[in-house]
């Protein structure tokens, strides 16, 4: 392709402009996370882009080491919500991966469950808000309201379409010869699946799992409706970071936001290559 100087200049200029715009919110959040109370206010003349007196107070604050005991909002530290987010997202991912990959294998190898591809796409298309009333009633009936396992269950269901589609493309791609050879040697199909296929698929499982985890970790709406106190997740907890002393605790919010951004960013970079595949329900293969 082009290698002219003008094209290269244009390329870097365009990319850097875009990067700059795209990084503003992220940088603002990072800078806010290290600002002391006095610099939080985003008001005209006082607006500062970088913390003038950088501090770790915001991080200390959300974990309960408060400098001023008069900030009234913080009855619960961020520890528990972080745990809730971790548990719900991890186990949700587990449910989605187990049910999704098993079904994907069943369809890919034995042609079972021919209705699943479409059913799962429809499940993903439908706005979750519109079914929250029956879901709330079901969850209350089953005693799942405000539990991490209840949250994990619904997360597992709503992200199963992704694990299913992803793993299906991986299984479809896998050469059958190895499995066939094992079958000839007298292995049962179940044994072939668990002892041969799954170990080979480990990298695929890992990247699909990380992808599903990011989706679960990002949820706000479902946790808002299905948790009340013990197991509120990070995004829901964030709403309670406000105080009558200083208004919204922007610094604390940014600090927690930064913490919340870490797992998906690391995981996203780790599975960069497979990300495309995940986001397109496996329709694109790397």
């Amino acid at each position, binding site marked *: 392709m*082009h290698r002219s100087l003008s094209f*290269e200049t244009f390329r870097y200029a*365009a*990319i850097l402009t*875009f990067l700059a715009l*795209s990084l*503003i*919110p992220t940088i*603002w959040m990072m800078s*806010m996370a290290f600002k002391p109370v006095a610099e939080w206010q985003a*008001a005209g*003349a006082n*607006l500062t882009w970088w913390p003038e007196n950088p501090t770790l107070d915001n991080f200390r604050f959300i974990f309960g080491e408060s400098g001023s005991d008069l900030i009234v909002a913080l009855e619960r530290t961020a520890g528990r919500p972080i745990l809730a987010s971790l548990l719900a997202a991890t186990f949700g991912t587990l449910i989605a991966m187990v049910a999704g990959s*098993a*079904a994907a*294998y*069943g*369809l*890919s190898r*034995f*042609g*079972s*469950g*021919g209705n699943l*591809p479409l*059913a799962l796409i*429809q*499940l993903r*298309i*439908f*706005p979750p808000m*519109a*079914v929250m*009333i*029956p879901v709330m*009633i*079901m969850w209350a009936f089953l005693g799942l309201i405000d539990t991490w396992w209840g949250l994990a269950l619904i997360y597992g*269901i709503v992200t199963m379409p992704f694990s*299913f589609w992803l793993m299906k*493309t991986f299984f*479809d791609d896998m050469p059958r010869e190895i499995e066939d050879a094992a079958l000839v040697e007298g292995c049962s199909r*179940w044994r072939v*699946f668990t002892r041969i296929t799954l170990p080979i698929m480990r990298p695929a499982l890992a990247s699909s799992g990380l992808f599903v985890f990011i989706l679960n970790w*990002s949820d*706000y709406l479902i946790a808002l409706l299905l948790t009340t106190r013990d197991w509120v997740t*990070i*995004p829901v907890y*964030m709403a309670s970071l406000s105080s009558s002393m200083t208004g919204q605790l*922007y610094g604390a919010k*940014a600090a927690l*936001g930064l913490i919340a*951004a870490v797992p998906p*960013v690391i995981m*996203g*970079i780790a599975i*960069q290559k497979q990300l495309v595949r995940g986001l397109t329900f*496996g*329709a*694109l*293969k790397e």
Partner: protein
Amino acid sequence: MTEIADIPPPRTETPAPPDREAARLGFRLTLPAQLLVLFIAVFPICMQIYISLTDWSPLDGIPWWRAHELWIGLTNYSDLASDFRFWGALWRTLFVMLVCVPVQFFLGLGLAILFVDEFPGRRIFYSVLLVPMMVVPAVAGYMFFMLFQSGGPVNDILSAFAGRTVSIAWLSDPDLALAAVIIADIWQWTPLMFLILLAGLVSVPKDQQLAAVLLGAGWWRRFRTIILPRMKTIIIIALAIRVIENFKIFDTLYIMTGGGPGIATETISVYIYKVTQQELIWGYVAAIALAILISLSIVSAFAIARLRRGS
């Protein structure tokens, strides 16, 4: 190398004559997924159909299964037909989609074209560009709320360019609030378009392009006649994904504006949330949900059928 899987498979080619063991295992393996789908579909749909025919609200003090005492037949559906807030929210949702998706598409495509071949710094730029879509949407909502304050960073930057103090009250003005919400969505999801389109671009075989170059085809011509046709499916997928997710838009928007000022940024999901949580007319919410479910099913079945025929 990137290639496109057939979407969706009409039914995967069944391996050899399916013996009984295979059929049984296949059934067992798909069972958990089937059960989970049934679990999340059957009761909610039945319950929604039932209460959508009633005037039930939790304020009535009777449990939902006794909603039949408030039977009103199809009244909720006829109310829906004349509910200007519902139609307004639907229109707003479509409007946001009609602005966001094309802008994301063209920005993403432009970026993808810039990234198609190797250049120094490509990997690191690529990784950094993906960061916005990894930020938890609720967190993005709080960040954009601050960014768009009248004395906030966005106006600060605009002031620097304009050379005078810009103090636009983004979130207090109905039109600008909608613009702010759209900007936030574009910020977060352009990387996704970029990612998918880049994968598509890379997948176009280099030898064909080379042949075209030898034939003297210019860049634009090559793009139009060789690259674009081969990317058709990928483009459709990218657009479809954004259309689907954009239709559900809630998290970032709700935290930034709560659907306000007034109802200026009220989308379908926000509207349903408000009717569910504030007005508490749940029979009506069920009717809205079913109407959406039915229309989405029709639209998606139609779209998928067309896609299948196309590929």
